[in-house]
């Protein structure tokens, strides 16, 4: 389903003319329905790797194959389509739109497909599964941190993606809320057979997933 071959990423240094290598020669294969965690210290390139996997950021070298296609040879609109329909994102900060209700926030990814109406029953169902059926018409400001993040998870699932990428999804939550969210993610992974890749500092969360990788000085190793 997903294959990374010798992926590397570097950034220009703000002070010198040298390049800063963030990822080096990373190769990885992920099968459908898998769940894996990537752990590592701050600045190790975890988020960059997740962005590359999620078609958000182009690698400096190497190949990212998505279902047999070289992801970064696709046109921008094709990448956008993949992000919209095949990949779901959960960020450390929920990034809920304050002007919309919970239900509407969940439906945002359906707008480019113009199928918000058809997707609404699913949104309600998913929100019910994560215990937010009583908060459908609340605004993000009326929710707790954990609840907001649960909305973000449901938003990631709304278009029935093949893969969900979560970048420090529990980073801004207390331990109890974090574990609760982890259970929701894993529950959805199993129930919807969706591949789950989580970048996290939290070993407790990482251990809940089937495979754990560590990113150290830009290199990926099995934990």
């Amino acid at each position, binding site marked *: 389903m997903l294959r990374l071959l010798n992926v590397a990423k570097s950034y220009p240094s703000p002070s010198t003319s040298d390049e800063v290598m963030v990822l080096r020669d990373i190769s990885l294969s992920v099968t459908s329905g898998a769940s894996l965690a990537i752990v590592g210290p701050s600045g190790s390139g975890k988020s960059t790797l997740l962005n590359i996997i*999620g078609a958000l950021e182009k690698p400096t070298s190497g190949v990212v194959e998505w279902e047999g296609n070289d992801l970064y040879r696709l046109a*921008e*609109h094709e990448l*956008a389509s993949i*992000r919209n329909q095949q990949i779901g994102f959960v*960020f450390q900060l929920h*990034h809920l*739109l304050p002007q919309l209700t919970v239900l509407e926030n969940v439906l945002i*990814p359906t707008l*480019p497909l113009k199928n918000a109406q058809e997707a609404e029953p699913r949104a309600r169902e998913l929100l019910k599964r994560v215990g937010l059926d009583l908060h459908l018409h609340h605004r993000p400001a009326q929710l707790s941190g954990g609840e907001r993040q649960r909305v973000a998870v449901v938003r990631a699932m709304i278009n029935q993606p093949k893969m969900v990428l979560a970048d420090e999804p529990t980073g801004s939550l207390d331990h109890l809320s974090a574990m609760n969210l982890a259970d929701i993610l894993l529950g959805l992974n199993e129930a919807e057979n969706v591949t789950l890749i989580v970048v996290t500092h939290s070993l407790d969360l990482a251990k809940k997933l089937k495979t754990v990788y560590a990113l150290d000085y830009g290199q990926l190793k099995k934990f």
Partner: protein
Amino acid sequence: MGFWSFIKKSLIFYRRTNLSVVLGVAVSTAVLLGALVIGDSVRYSLRKLVFDRLGQTEFALQTGDRFFRAQLADELAEQLTTKTAPLLHTRGIAIAADGVSRVNKVQVFGIDERFGAIGDVAGTFANLAPNDIVINQRLAKRLNAVTGDEVLLRIEKLDAMPKDAPMATTTEISIAQRFTVAAIASEKQFGRFSLRTSQVEPYNAFLHLSTLSQALDMVGKANVLLVAERPQAHLTSDDLRSALAESFNLADAGLSLKSVLQHTTLECRSDRIFLEPVIARRLESEFPQAQSILTYFVNQLGLGRRTTPYSFVSAANPGKIEVGEDEIVVNKWLSDDLGAQIGDSLQLTFFTIGPMRLLREDTTKLRVKAIVPLSGPYADRDLMPDFPGLSDEENCRDWQAGIPIDYDRIRDKDEAYWDDHRGTPKAFINLKTAQKLWGNRFGDLTAIRFQGVERTDLEQRLTKLLDPESGFIFQPVREQGLRASDQAISFSQLFIGLSFFLIVAALLLTGLLFVFALEERAEETGLLRAIGYQTSHIRRLILSEGLCLALLGSFLGLVLGLLYENIVLFALKTIWRDIVGTSALHLKVNASTLAIGLLAGILMSIVSMWLMTRRHAKRSIADLQKGAIRVDAVSSIKHARSLLLGCASTAAVIVILLAVNPARSGAAAAAFFAAGTLSLVAGVAFSNAAMARLLKTASPRLSIKSIGRRNNARRRLQSLTLIGLLAAGVFITFTVGANRTGLVKNVHERSSGTGGFALWGETALPILYDLNSPAGQDFYGFAGGDASFVQFKVKEGDDASCLNLNRIANPQLLGVQPDELVRRGAFSFAALVDEVDAEQPWHSLNVAYENDVIPGIADQTVIVWGLGKAVGDTLTYVDEKGGEFHIRLVGGLANSIFQGNLLISKDHFIDKYPSVGGDRVLLVDTPPDQIDDVAQKLTWAFQDQGLDVTPTAARLAEFNKVTNTYLSIFMILGGLGLILGSIGLGIVVVRNVLERRGELALMRAVGFQNRSLRRMVLSEHIVLLYAGIAIGALSSLIAVLPSLLTPATELPYATVLLILAAIIGSGVMWIGLAAKMALRGELLPALRNE
């Protein structure tokens, strides 16, 4: 939830930020819409003025010094089945009862009820008693007169005989009479009546037609005929032509038939005394057997020492004696008086009249061919023309001829001859000889006699020969007026131009506010991109939201625009009245204009938003999600390039400052403007280099100020844009504004716009003599000392100066003797056609082109703005006889006192308008220390001519006032734009502070007080404000250096300082407010969010 629902929720949620965007759009739309509505209102007002001044008049016939039967109006009314009105029109001078208030250029109209009917105000002009006068509001105001007051009116006498013609009387060219003001006519009561295309209300006085015609000895005559619109069927020029042809008769052409020689002969005479050459030739050709006659008044007939004074000599041949060209036949009385015998050589002495009634006494010698008795055909007193002041007088000593008469020379026997035989010619000469001696531009025959023809039959034949269109052209005055108003100066374009900075500033503000609103929601954009929204989709979302804001803003702008338009209209009627010359401006709002304004407002705002946000949707998703602070990159090459550009521009500025003498006008102005622009470029380039350096190098000493300065460098492009915009705004606003011209001090120079003349004079009644000659000065009782004059003939037309808003087709013509200006080397030219000698351009006026084209010179501003033409173009005029001729614009004068007029040579003028008598404009040359004295003497001597004397410098300043007012408006609106721009600076402050809340929170956390942070924010942004203003002001100072050193310039220092203070004050206030607002509340939570 759908696309629009999402937008709606976003609009409501971010309402506070969005409101500011809406306000920005509203301001730009309001200014644009206001400008468009001002255009509509001015155009509408000008159109309305056409109806105010013409009433129902659709066509008008103006014949000037030719008079037709007033009855013609009724005949045409019947034929055309519409209303008509005959008018007698002349000029006059009105003096209030107190004798102090005096108005010189009064249009005096003889009218009756028919005029009131055309103006739809029958009541005002009905039942006017012989001593009643109706004056219009403007005249009443100037005279401070109310109904019932007495007004003294000096009226120019009308005479069919041209004032420059030989024997025309010059002593009584006006009459004075007292009238009682019966009514004051407002513009709704036809008080504005005028056949001239101008928005400026004339001074009008209306008398009953019978009163005026009796006073002027013109009973039953008229020289203006108004034809009203015909509601049932549109009137055409052809309708009028055929109706006129039907009714036109000899009397309308100023001709009459008189039965002479015991009713055996009919004689055709002209009211103008001399039969016009065209008519004379036509009659001679149609009636070869007719007898052509030229009778003239000679000063003396002499033989040796014996002389006979003041006698008529005729070129008739009553006795059918063959008279050779050098022969003369004398009657018995003359023969006896002189002792003349056949074969003697008689000397004839007579006056001929040159330009400006310059009398020349000529003589000729003719040999006596025969002596005839004073009886039979030789005793024909009808051969004497009806010379005014001669033929009607009982005694020779009562003669008031237009030539000097020495009454002492008139003997008793001469009186006796006059008593017995009146003006019976004493001698007869050959017609060719007579025409050679006495023929003039008005004609070479005084009568034509027809024998054996029936009066009715002759009348019919003669009428058929007359061409009514010769001088009788009905002008479609309404159509012309409406066309002139439609093509008038576009106040829409003008105000869009004048408000340019205001509109741009509002648009930039809109764009900035929108960007600010978007950046507040950067994470949202990042999220949308992350979850698969395409860039185009996001852009559509952004622009749709923008469109909604633009729609809301534009509708609000519509309301504000009408308010703004009202304010501008009020200003145009009051403080800016100089540029419109009237307070008769009315608000007019066209639905189409509103739609255009709204659409333009929306479009401009959307484009502005798109330009400002086009990069936003493309930013890195990761950056957007993190709300990352962008730091504008800078490379060493770019830094070096900026430095190089700054140095090169500065070097060029120094070279120009050293090499060009700012006191030299023309080229120096252009060079210094270039230097100012280069200085602007240098300032911005150095600012760029300085900021790049700040970003690349660490401060030697870290301080709160250095942190502030470096913050500016972090958003270098934004900072540079602010500096550049402020600098450019200040530069253009002040550079343009500083070009105001005041009272010029180089007025004595021949090359200046005054031509070096001290005074400009205009009279209501013509000056018939050359004021440079002792005879002329003596005639008017003027002792001019060292003053000398250049006199101009005037053919009235429309004012084409910048004081008239309408697009003029035929400006007033001034006829001048070009040599007078050549001799003085007066005035400078802004443009000339190729074939004109640049050294002596005035000479070109003497040229005559083929195909009835003559050269003309006008003020360049008149050519370009008043006429919408260029040098080399031609204008079409109609001459006195109804023929078309063309004036080719061969030169454009540099800003001169001739604004509004078109100059042609006097010879061409006389050729085209021979009946226009005397001169009505004069330029006076006098030493500077005598100006006041000469002006006073002139005013006194020519008070009966209604002379208005103005110093030429003041006249020029009057025209400059219009330009200055435009520049003031530009400066004020530009200043408002800059003030609005300073609000943009405030927005930038808020945006920068919010973006750096975490950084500022950290500074709080490490011990900085909120006050210190505010000072830091203030200082870093005020630097931008000061830098922009300083660069702009310095560059502007360099650009206007030539103007500063020119005495002609009247720099509006107070306005400039006021606007500068307002910009700085507004800028500091907005920056302060913004900093306070952005730093309000707890900063520390921002650290947690980080």
